[in-house]
């Protein structure tokens, strides 16, 4: 019950639709006992407009319109229930047989569903009713016969995903028959989307019956809203209320069924709603542009904080990060999944998820301020980052399969990116530049005409790197550039990035969970934990003289090729819940060396040596 209340809160449409369906059900059941006129009695004055006597007026035979609408709800709901019940039943039976047994049965049955889905159902219903007569039973069966493939397809998909579940396999292993497995273990768990779709089917059935009645193929003995509109059509000038009110009733009931289906669908699949959060950003701030100092560091980040809004609460994936990157330098950012390293990369180029917002901190790119106290800096209404994108800083993403547009040739994607920032250039110049970067990174020129799905993983990642190099940026942020690739290709790509860095004087930020990759490519390493950089130092220092227990644990987890044989050490416990406010050292619960102070006081940032900082109470004391 409480669950129902939670589902309903904030969903006005769902609540309204339940009220409407409820009203219709009440009218349908209670019609004979309601204090309304006999729907077929012709004893009132014909063509009486709506008024005190007849709330919705009377028709051309002097029948009360309100009473006919109430009785019409009966027929509408009957059609809705029976036809969708038959259709769902047929769909469940045939769909689960098709999905469960697979093979030839599945091929034949699912082809049948496809073919039946192509048959325009209304015309088949029309034909059936025209041949067999206008009886409501025929109408309902005909509607069911033309709509069942919908449910069958849904059920088939459900069964396909359910039949490999452990509990189903267990039931079969325990000797349950096919029928028992299906009926007891599979079908009940796959019903939810069928029920959701059944409400949509109900709306469809009501509309179909009304359409048939409107064409004069309705049951003559029943009061139908469609039939009322059919009668009202001829009296449109004289008595418009005869057609207005039954139409409104139809509209409300069908809309209620559709909204109900929608609402149920959303309630059952919460991920459908997750799309719909968007964080409110801080206001932008206008700064008078200054001439950037020529020798300013390429990137300066200080006290950067960002938050993700997740429904009612929020987490801080980046929580007070500061570092500076000099031109030509390289920094590796390492840490476990969820430590905030990718969020940091996205924040530098301000391409965060829609539910992310910057809460505090400054970013300066090539001497130009782009973020101040968490506010985006603008000049004359234009983002100050806009003119620096791709010309000063570029980013490459983890999965190049998804990071390139699947429906555009890769060459065109690069050409467009080139022309965007070089408005003076023409297409030929762009093509030349693309060829140049392709040559540089080892992509055959012929690949310009390929779509991303036609390339191998390594080739796609090279195209992505080529894309990032188009405008010779000074800073390249590489977010797990090799994670999805096999080890050999990983090494090649990393080698190429390293070569480019030297050749072009690139400054590099390499975000990776792979300490080895970082060690090969970067001069410095920053270790992130729970949104903070807990240690930053030159690579050799990190590998030789790490001060933070977390860094030490990460290093201990690395398998070694030489030296003593030992099992890689794993770190106990889970990364902390970043939703909780910080009052202590975040690593303390997992730290072998934690003391009381670690659980009560935030650790200071300790300068261990030049270029070596660690966020630990004992960084200045501990020796390993």
């Amino acid at each position, binding site marked *: 019950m409480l669950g129902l209340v939670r589902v309903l809160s904030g969903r006005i449409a769902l609540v309204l639709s339940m009220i409407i369906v409820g009203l219709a059900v009440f009218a349908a059941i209670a019609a004979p006992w309601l204090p309304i006129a006999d729907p077929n009695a012709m004893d009132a004055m014909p063509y009486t407009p709506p008024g005190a006597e007849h709330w919705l007026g009377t028709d051309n035979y002097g029948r009360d319109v309100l009473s006919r609408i109430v009785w019409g709800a009966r027929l509408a709901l009957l059609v809705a229930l029976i036809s969708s019940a038959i259709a769902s039943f047929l769909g469940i039976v045939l769909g689960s047989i098709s999905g469960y047994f697979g093979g030839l049965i599945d091929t034949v049955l699912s082809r049948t569903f*496809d073919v039946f889905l*192509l048959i*325009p159902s*209304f015309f088949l219903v029309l034909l059936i009713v025209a041949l067999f007569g206008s009886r409501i039973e025929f109408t309902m069966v005909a509607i069911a016969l033309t709509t069942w493939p919908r449910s069958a397809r849904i059920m088939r998909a459900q069964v396909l995903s359910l039949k490999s579940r452990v509990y189903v396999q267990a039931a079969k292993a325990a000797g349950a028959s096919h029928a028992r497995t299906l009926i007891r273990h599979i079908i009940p768990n796959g019903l939810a989307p069928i029920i959701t779709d059944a409400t949509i089917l109900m709306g469809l059935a009501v509309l179909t019956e009304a359409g048939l009645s*409107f064409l004069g193929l309705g049951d003559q003995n029943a009061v139908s809203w469609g039939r009322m509109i059919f009668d009202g059509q001829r009296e449109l000038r004289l008595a418009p209320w005869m057609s207005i009110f039954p*139409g409104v009733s139809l509209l409300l009931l069908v809309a209620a069924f559709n*909204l109900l289906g929608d609402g149920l669908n959303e309630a059952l699949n919460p991920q459908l709603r997750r799309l*719909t959060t968007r964080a409110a950003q801080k206001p932008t701030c206008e700064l008078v542009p200054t001439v950037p100092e020529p020798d300013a560091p390429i990137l300066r980040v200080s006290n950067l904080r960002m938050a993700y809004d997740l429904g009612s609460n929020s987490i801080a994936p980046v929580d007070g990060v500061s570092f500076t990157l000099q031109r030509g330098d390289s920094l590796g950012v390492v840490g476990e999944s969820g430590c905030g390293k990718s969020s940091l990369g996205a924040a530098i180029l301000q391409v965060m998820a829609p539910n992310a917002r910057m809460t505090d901190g400054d970013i300066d790119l090539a001497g130009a301020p782009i973020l101040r106290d968490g506010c985006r800096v603008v000049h004359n209404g234009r983002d100050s980052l806009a003119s620096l994108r791709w010309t000063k800083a570029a980013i490459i993403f983890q999965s190049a399969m*998804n990071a390139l547009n699947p*429906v555009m040739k890769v060459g065109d994607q690069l050409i467009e990116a080139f022309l965007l920032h070089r408005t003076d250039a023409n297409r030929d110049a762009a093509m030349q530049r693309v060829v140049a970067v392709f040559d540089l990174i080892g992509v055959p020129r012929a690949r310009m005409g390929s779509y991303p799905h036609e390339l191998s993983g390594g080739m796609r990642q090279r195209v992505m790197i080529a894309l990032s190099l188009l405008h010779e940026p000074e800073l390249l942020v590489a977010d797990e550039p090799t994670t999805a690739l096999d080890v050999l290709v990983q090494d090649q790509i990393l080698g190429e990035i390293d070569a480019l860095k030297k050749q072009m004087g690139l400054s590099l930020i390499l975000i990776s969970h792979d300490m080895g990759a970082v060690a090969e490519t970067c001069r410095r390493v920053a270790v992130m934990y729970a949104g903070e950089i807990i240690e930053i130092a030159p690579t050799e220092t990190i590998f030789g003289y790490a001060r933070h227990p977390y860094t030490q644990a990460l290093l201990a987890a690395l398998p070694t090729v030489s030296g003593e044989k030992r099992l890689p050490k794993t770190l106990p416990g889970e990364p902390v819940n970043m939703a909780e406010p910080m009052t202590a050292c975040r690593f303390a619960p997992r730290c072998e060396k934690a003391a009381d102070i670690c659980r009560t006081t935030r650790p200071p940032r300790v300068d261990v040596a030049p270029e070596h900082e660690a966020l630990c109470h004992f960084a200045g004391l501990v020796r390993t």
Partner: protein
Amino acid sequence: MHVGLLRFVLLRLLQLVPVTIIVIVINFLLLHLAPGDISTTLAGDNADPAYLAMIRESYGLDRPFHEQLWRYLVQIGSGDMGVSFRSREPVFDEIMLRVPATLLLVGTSLVLSVVVGTSIGTWIARRPGSTLDSGISALAVGLFSIPVFWLGLMLVLLFAVRLQILPAMGMTSVDGPREGIGRVMDVATHMVLPVLALMTVSLGQYVRLARSAVAEVMGESYITTVRAIGFSERTIMMHYALRNALLPVVTVLGLQLGLVLTGAVLTETVFSWPGLGRLIYDAILARDTPVIMGSFIIMSATVAIASLVTDLLYAVIDPRVGLK
């Protein structure tokens, strides 16, 4: 790559065959299951005995069941769908005569609803979850819940009866110009209300589809890439997101054609539009079974072909198709 595409096209063409055969077989079975004698069902209640005998002969009604089915398949397959017993004209010719009017109505409203619906859907997808978005999304559900024939009547009531600014029925005025721009304008004026009715009920579908598709595409990482490159939100929306979001719209376009044709029949009935729908309606009133059956076959074939065209269109937009 082109070999893959060609194979895909041929396979899809082949799939048209079973659909057509199944539809014809359904017709045949219904005819046999229906109460009453088949020859009278096909020839009408007061046909003359000679004509009845001819029907029996041509459908082979005295032959075994499977032979009847075969004859029926061959006959329908060759385009012979019998003779309308209202007009005494061949059903196929009757139907073809009405196709242009329906095509004009359905085509216009389909193009309008896709263009307008997709634009609105894309527009509200920029701010998913906003009041505007939820409002329009709920309204869209309302739109496709409207019975199209009732909406047609209400439009007639408002624009033809009350305001008297638009014609309520037919395709042309009785005394209107017969040729040139005058005739075009005359037909266009008559089209406004039926097109509006038909378009409104399918509009909601495209609004919702485009909205969810665009909102989903905007979360893809290649959109993050073009954002990082520095393309404006407007360019991203129009050039990148929309094209990818068109894929589901195209799919549904094909799948929903059956519903649109249904709407067309009902709309034509309301507006006395001289198309297929009107033909079917008149056939129902006169119990002209051959015409109803012929229309069912033609409508099914149209929907099947439309779904083929949709798949081809999909293959053009999405290079990944046909290369699994």
